[in-house]
């Protein structure tokens, strides 16, 4: 039953991709979107059944791929990722109906979006090296096409696509190399065979496979220092594609680490997981800081993805390390928390990207410094963006709060672990969680405050209007999911526990008590978000009525509107408002060592006296320091080697013949 539903889902998405490519313009959007929504629902049903019942399914087909055939199976771990993708995909499909009516929208986007979704559903279900790599490569290709869908002629988009293509293919090459190495030594390419033979593999080999594949998966997940494609690709991609990239694709990097490290290699050694946790700590801090300093809304969201992936990797590292210390209960707790946060991040981040797309749709910009006052012009989008922003800031009652609390609790309980190294790693994780909490709140106060509140800064922002109902509905699905998981997180936990047990080599006992809130089974620790929300609402009503019904003369009852206080000046214009750049300035100055902003101040003096400036221009750029310090030199080196190599072939046939002869000799020597 679950297998059928899953297959129907994937086939419906493939059919939707074909429809999107061949139908005439009038019917294309609706046909492709509805069919992909059906596909997502079917995949959700299939994966949901696996998650609830705990019974995996497996299939083999020799027809599709030559030589190896296709192996598809879905266990609870994979099913969780399929379910997350399906929910995000459902919302994105609805959204794309209205989004596609945009003049920029292209047939490519309509056709590629369902295909991308189908590959996202295939990766967690692939159960052999060949199938996995095929699905992984298809995912890379469809996402690249999706990225190029709208503005393929813009230099920024082309640049972003180039970065993304290179990073994703280096990553794929690393994964392929690692998995082939593993399959060659384990005597088979199916995941089941590899897992069965893992004990025969030497530890150095296992470690090599883990580190090589980790590099590939971390580049897909967007972990620092392999994150450079994210803040380039996400802003340039059409918003439904960015939503899928951030909400579903980066998750699969985490999935890969769990699948290879825990399920195939059996957990391995402590240092593997300390490596993962340190990647997480770096990513969380670096991402949160850049998010707080960004002024491009989608770039901000992309860096915030780096931050959240970091938190998830901290959790994965903690779970793996605790498992190596032999503490299965605490490892299970940490992994449940991690998967919960991953699911929540998928929901709110894709919602936020869709809302950013709605803003771009309505105002043709995503630069916060050109927006402002949208709350009164796009009220529904403002509320939906607000729900996402408050969730990601972990305001109590939101799903982000529930999972960050659980992650905090997982790390705190794990600190009781036996090994001192693990303790230190977990402490670093807690510190990163605490620091990113404040930075994320700052980033999103900036996004709401500068983008939605205050006065509009440009004509486009002044004329903004709420977008089509289908787009709002798409965002609404995700907002409802966020609120539900925030108020009654307990409903999702049994499913997450099942997935987490499947994601640890030794399985995991129940770490949580059943209920609508969250309560640890083995230690004193619980939260009851439903009660907190009821309490908050009651307190808001009481405080609100204290203001409204305060005893004052009848003519003063109704709130009056007055002018803003202009410090003695009459006129208050939007030019005087704080901008996103200046909002982030203090923080940027505090963390100047990490952010390394470039300033450029030009003062033109009046010709009469240099005490009177005629014009002042100030430019600031915050480039990614890692890109500048690590990638640029490497790229420059490759380019200069290329230039050197160009001197060798000078057009002389004699020289080429000499090369051929030398190469032949070399081959003979080697083969001897």
């Amino acid at each position, binding site marked *: 039953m679950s297998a059928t539903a899953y297959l129907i889902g994937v086939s419906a998405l493939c059919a939707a991709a074909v429809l999107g490519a061949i139908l005439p313009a009038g019917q294309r959007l609706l046909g492709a979107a509805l069919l992909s929504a059906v596909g997502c629902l079917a995949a959700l049903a299939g994966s949901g059944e696996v998650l609830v019942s705990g019974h995996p399914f497996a299939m083999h087909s020799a027809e599709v791929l030559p030589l190896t055939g296709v192996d598809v199976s879905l266990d609870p771990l994979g099913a969780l990722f399929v379910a997350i993708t399906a929910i995000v995909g459902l919302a994105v499909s609805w959204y794309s109906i209205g989004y596609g009516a945009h003049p920029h929208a292209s047939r490519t986007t309509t056709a590629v979006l369902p295909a991308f979704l189908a590959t996202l559903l295939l990766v967690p279900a692939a159960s052999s090296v060949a199938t996995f790599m095929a699905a992984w490569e298809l995912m890379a290709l469809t996402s690249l096409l999706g990225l190029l869908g709208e503005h393929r002629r813009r230099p920024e988009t082309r640049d972003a696509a180039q970065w993304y293509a290179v990073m994703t293919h280096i990553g794929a090459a690393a994964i392929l190399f690692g998995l082939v190495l593993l399959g060659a030594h384990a005597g088979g390419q199916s995941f089941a065979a590899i897992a069965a033979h893992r004990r025969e593999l030497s530890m150095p080999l296992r470690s090599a496979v883990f580190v090589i594949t980790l590099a590939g998966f971390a580049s897909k997940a967007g972990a620092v220092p392999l994150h450079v494609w994210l803040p380039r690709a996400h802003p340039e991609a059409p918003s439904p594609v960015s939503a899928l990239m951030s909400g579903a694709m980066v998750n699969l990097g985490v999935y890969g680490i769990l699948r290879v490290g825990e399920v195939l290699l059996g957990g391995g050694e402590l240092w593997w997981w300390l490596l993962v946790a340190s990647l997480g700590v770096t990513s969380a801090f670096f991402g949160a800081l850049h998010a707080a300093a960004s002024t491009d809304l989608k770039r901000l969201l992309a860096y915030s993805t780096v931050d959240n992936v970091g938190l998830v990797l901290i959790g994965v590292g903690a779970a793996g390390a605790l498992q190596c210390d032999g503490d299965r209960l605490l490892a299970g707790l940490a992994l449940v928390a991690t998967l919960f946060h991953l699911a929540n991040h998928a929901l709110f981040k894709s919602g936020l990207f869709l809302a950013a797309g709605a803003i771009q749709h309505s105002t043709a910009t995503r630069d916060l410094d050109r927006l*402002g006052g949208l*709350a009164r012009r796009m009220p529904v989008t403002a509320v939906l963006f607000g729900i996402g922003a*408050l969730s990601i*800031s*972990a305001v*109590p009652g939101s799903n982000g*709060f529930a999972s960050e*609390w659980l992650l905090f609790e997982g790390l*705190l309980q794990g600190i*009781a672990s036996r090994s*001192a190294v693990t303790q230190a790693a977990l*402490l670093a994780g*807690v*510190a990163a969680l*605490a*620091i990113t*909490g*404040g*930075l994320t*709140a*700052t980033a999103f*106060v900036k996004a*709401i*405050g500068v983008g*939605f*509140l205050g006065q509009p800064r440009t004509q486009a922002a002044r004329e903004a209007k709420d977008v089509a109902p289908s787009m709002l509905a798409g965002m609404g699905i995700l907002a409802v999911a966020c609120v539900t998981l925030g108020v009654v997180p307990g409903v999702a936990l049994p499913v997450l526990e099942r997935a987490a047990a499947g994601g640890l080599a030794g399985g995991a006992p129940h770490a949580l008590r059943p209920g609508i809130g969250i309560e640890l089974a083995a*230690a*004193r*620790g619980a*939260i*009851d978000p439903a*009660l*907190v929300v009821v*309490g*908050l609402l*009651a*307190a808001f*009503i*009481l*405080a609100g009525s204290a*203001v409204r019904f*305060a*005893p*004052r003369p009848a003519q*003063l009852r109704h*709130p*009056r509107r*007055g*002018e*803003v*206080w202009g410090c003695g000046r009459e006129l208050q214009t*939007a030019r*005087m*408002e*704080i901008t996103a750049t*200046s*909002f982030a300035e*203090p*923080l940027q100055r*505090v963390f100047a060592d990490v952010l390394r902003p470039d300033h450029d101040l030009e003062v033109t003096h009046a010709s009469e006296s240099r005490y009177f400036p005629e014009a002042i221009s100030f430019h600031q750029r915050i480039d990614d320091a890692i890109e500048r310090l690590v990638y640029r030199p490497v790229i420059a080196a490759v380019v200069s080697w290329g230039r050197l190599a160009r001197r060798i072939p000078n057009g002389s046939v004699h020289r080429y013949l000499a090369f051929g002869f030398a190469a032949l000799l070399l081959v003979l020597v080697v083969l001897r």
Partner: protein
Amino acid sequence: MTGGLADLAVVDPALAERVGVSAVQVGIVLVGGPLLLGLMGKLRARAEGRVGAPITQGLADLRKLLHKEAIRAEPTSAVSAMAPVVLVGSAAVAAALTPLVSTRPVSAGGADVFLVVYLLLMGSIALALGGLDAGTAFGGMGSSRAMTIGAISEPALLVGILALAVQARTSNLPGIVKASLAHPGWLASPQRILALGALVVVVIAETGRIPVDNPSTHLELTMIHEAMVLEQAGPDLALTTAGEAMRLGLLLGLVANLFFPWGVADSGGGLAIAVGIFALAVKASALAALIALIEVSTAKLRLFRVPELLAGGFVLAIVAVTIGLVSR
């Protein structure tokens, strides 16, 4: 919190008592916050050789503001109306859950460190958004500075309390207070002393006192909190002022009970709760006096020196946790 659960309380006497404890705590923080501010003002005035306003000045100001006309700036949205309400509401719920008077408030099992810290963060977010809503230069500047300081002080608060949580092996606040009541020897342990230092820095930053912010200034270049509420007037300002006072009272009460848990009621009964109220008043007043003393004896720091102070607090907190881990 009390309104919605009053019907249930008829059924279960134990729950009625918990609801009562929470209601008492909210009431104490609501009234006690402004009184603590008054006390600090009085002490500062006396130390500077002035008479100073009466201690009850804060309550009188609130009453005055509540009777004034409600007036909001032209370009504002619903956020301006909601921000003060959220500030007070989040502080009230945090006060209802925190073991201030007794270790048995409503939902004691769910009274977690993380929850209380993030409820405070919720109030800070509301205040900062309120400051940005009118679109004025000052409001935005204040919000930007407040969020910058909050972004560094909030982790110090969380990690500071974490030092105690590691010692007590739970992040449940009543659990920590109970554990410290059961182990009097912990009170002088090095990690607690370091954590106390970190939390005092945090309280000063979160409540906007000298040397981080000067609550009595309206000088454009230096103000933080006052800049955010510049557009508020009348009842809105009353709520914001009350909310800020409640946060001060809550933080002082929380720090007092975490580090000096004597007198907190651990059982039911009117007498124990009365003792708890008295002990809380004494301890919170003592901490307020300490902060007033710091305020008199230091000058306000430059804005860009403040993060150094807070980072110092954060490092103290981290060292406290590390000592806790090593000495176990």
